């Protein structure tokens, strides 16, 4: 193969890759590799194309690239992505750490380190990396969301609330962020804040049928405040917009608190708390589904 032919193949591989034709890019790149087996950029191209195609040889090609160019952060970054795509999180984390050593301000590598660390059972390292990522780019909503999720799962409620507030500030129409702030405020007994957030959510969440979820959250706040009359008003409002009848038991409980026992048996407080928590959970899930794919 002449250099000219190899040049053509490389160009073909590059342009095909950029056009999203990974199959052609892989074929042309593979052919060019026969002539230039030590070309790390070509190895990266073919490796990345292989990963896009779901081929087995992607990681191997990218490993060859980093072996030939161990000081190339881009090559390590490609390898990290490929490994994480294969579900090899520990190795991926190592690759991302190499990127940071070579290029300390690489935001994506920090995000990669954080998630692979968390998946490897090291939440502290995950939090550290995400904090660094957020410090460097306070507008990264995805990083804030991951940090918030990890804080919540680790029981770091105050940190979670601060992060949720930052996210809600950044994304004012983000229902999930508002839900997080509201729930965390509720957990911490910051009932005024919870009430304000769920009140805004009631107005802002325009998905059909979602007003009832905000109302349930507001009822929860009022039950904790023991403001039974206000809870009754909200329960009546919720009943009006609740076509699934999920408020009936809550209303019966509040009515019993306000007017005393009636003929209709009212549920216990723990049952009501569970129902209201389930409502929030369902609300969250509906919006979480909308975030992906």
């Amino acid at each position, binding site marked *: 193969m002449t250099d000219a032919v190899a040049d053509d193949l*490389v160009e073909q591989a590059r342009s095909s890759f950029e056009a999203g034709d990974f199959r052609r890019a892989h074929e042309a790149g593979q052919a060019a590799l026969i002539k230039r087996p030590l070309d790390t950029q*070509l190895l990266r191209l073919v490796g990345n194309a292989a990963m*896009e195609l779901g081929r087995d040889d992607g990681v191997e090609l990218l490993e060859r690239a980093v072996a030939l160019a161990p000081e190339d952060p881009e090559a390590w970054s*490609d390898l990290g992505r490929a490994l994480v795509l294969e579900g090899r999180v520990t190795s991926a984390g190592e690759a991302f750490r190499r990127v940071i050593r070579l290029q300390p301000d690489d935001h994506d590598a920090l995000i990669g380190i954080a998630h692979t660390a968390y998946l490897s059972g090291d939440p502290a390292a995950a939090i550290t990396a995400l904090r660094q990522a957020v410090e460097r780019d306070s507008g990264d909503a995805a990083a804030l969301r991951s940090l918030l*999720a990890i804080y919540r799962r680790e029981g770091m409620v105050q940190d979670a609330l601060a992060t949720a507030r930052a996210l809600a500030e950044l994304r004012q129409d983000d229902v999930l962020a508002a839900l997080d702030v509201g729930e965390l405020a509720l957990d911490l007994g910051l009932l005024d804040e919870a009430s304000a957030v769920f009140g805004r959510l009631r107005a802002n969440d*325009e998905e059909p049928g979602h007003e009832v979820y905000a109302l349930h959250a507001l009822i929860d706040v009022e039950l904790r405040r023991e403001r039974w009359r206000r809870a009754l008003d909200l329960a009546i409002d919720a009943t009006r917009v609740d*076509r*699934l*009848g999920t408020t009936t038991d809550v209303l019966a409980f509040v009515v019993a608190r306000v007017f005393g026992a009636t003929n209709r048996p009212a549920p216990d407080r723990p049952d009501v708390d569970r129902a209201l928590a389930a409502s929030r959970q369902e609300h969250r899930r509906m919006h979480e589904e909308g975030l992906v*794919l």
Partner: protein
Amino acid sequence: MSSELTAAPRAAGPVEWTKCPSCDAFVYHKRLRRNLGVCPECNYHFRLPVQRRLEQLLDDDSFTDLSDEIQPLDVLSFADTKPYADRLADAQRKTGGREAAVYGTAEIDGHPVVVAAMDFAFVGGSMGSGVGEAVTRAAELALERRTPLLVIATSGGARMQEGCVSLMQMAKTSQAVARLHEEGILFVSLLTDPTYGGVTASFPTLGDILLSEPNSYIGFAGPKVIEQTIRQTLPEGFQTAEFLLDHGMLDLVEPRENLRQALRKLLELHSLAPVAGQPRKEIVARLPETEGRAPVTDPALLPARPAWDVVQLARHIDRPNTLEYVGYVFDDFQELAGDRLFDEDAAIVGGLARLGDLTVVLIGHQKGHTTSEMVERNFGMPNPEGYRKGMRLMRHAAKFGLPIVTLVDTPGAYPGLGAEERGQSIAIAQSIMEMSRLPVPTVTAVTGEGGSGGALALAVGDRVLMMENSYYSVISPEGCSTILFKDASQAPRAAEALRVTAPDLLRLGIMDAVVPEPEGGAHHDPADAAANLKTAIVTALRDLLPTPVDELLQRRYDRFRAFGTPGRQPVLPPPAEVP
């Protein structure tokens, strides 16, 4: 001087992660997409946008979108807290689509299909005039081109903002589907999470084949409405696809990674139906060559065994069951479940299978070999749901002109309280009647126990065969012994007196031929027994396939009309004494 890449291009954007709403694990977004939107940690199936769904199921670049004219209509000038028109504009902006459904033509592994697919992200996939129009046009196009229709459903129900016009889409789509059924066009429906309300109660559940993904929620009323109405907590998994499968409402539930393959297989099997107008000789030529021993039609050539010995062999726990014979005799078996009414009865299995290059519908009793399997399959004793599933599959065969093979092996229909409540007798009677008028060739083989009406319900065939060591009887020998011989221990005598074995049934004309078994019985060499069975079935179909439908029906009528008719019914001499 060679030119070199200065930097390798990279397809991926930032390294995005997403949290699985089911298990809370972080999943690399790209990995999730590669995994078809299924969480690699917990197998949770994420809801898919319509484009992603089509990409996963259809051949690359094969989809031609014909939905240009599909638009929602604001027929009521509806406004709640916001005008409907504004809500539509929001949904269009959010999803990039014009409506909650698209339709067009495509291919799946080269098989042409017309597709209508819904998008839950667009106003909850609700069905208004636009969705109804897309589905109806798809059905009409499928009819015009005589191409299978694939519907991918997901919806919260009818679209309130279009009032009764929305309700009418249920009728509009259902009548379009009815035409497909009348014309014998295949309609496969994939019900995805969630599918509810007026949509579930119209076109998607009218498919010839209904399939779904694990854990998809499908129902009419939402679970909360039901809980509030009946004031009871619903069982775990209520309204999931698996729940519906268990209750006879779905044919199959396949993980997302298998869906495309399942669709391919269904299309392939239906493409191998005998084609109307095709020369009968060509259809017959699609049957496979066989190597088994020929079926026996002369009773004198059959070994004479004590009837009771035959009964024991027929009941032997290791004797091959329907699903084993299916494995040996047929290819590409695709089991189809459910009676679409009440339950999935594992005592009867059925589905599509390939015999050479010809697809047949196969239905048979299934007993199992281990205690747990026998319990699961109720020892091969069907409830009414089993027979109703059988009838559903027979109608499927009739619709597509597929020959039917039934394998009979049951002690009898299940004598239970629930079975009676749900009409056991009626189910058996209807099955017998429907079989008698099926406009397709039907071959029956009794492979083990032929227990009375429970067996006959699957045995009104054009050709009725039995394995050498099977038996067929109006009542179990034990039952007859108790009632007529007044002594339960006289079962061997009763078996002899009832003439339940192959030679006698051949002489009586109940059987047309007997399938030889290996020495010691079918369980000694199931492969050999199955080879013989295959030869017998293929031989029968070679005779039957060239027969015009009218003649087929008349001969079947005559066959069963002759039983007990003076002058036409052979009468046997007294049996040998049992010591």
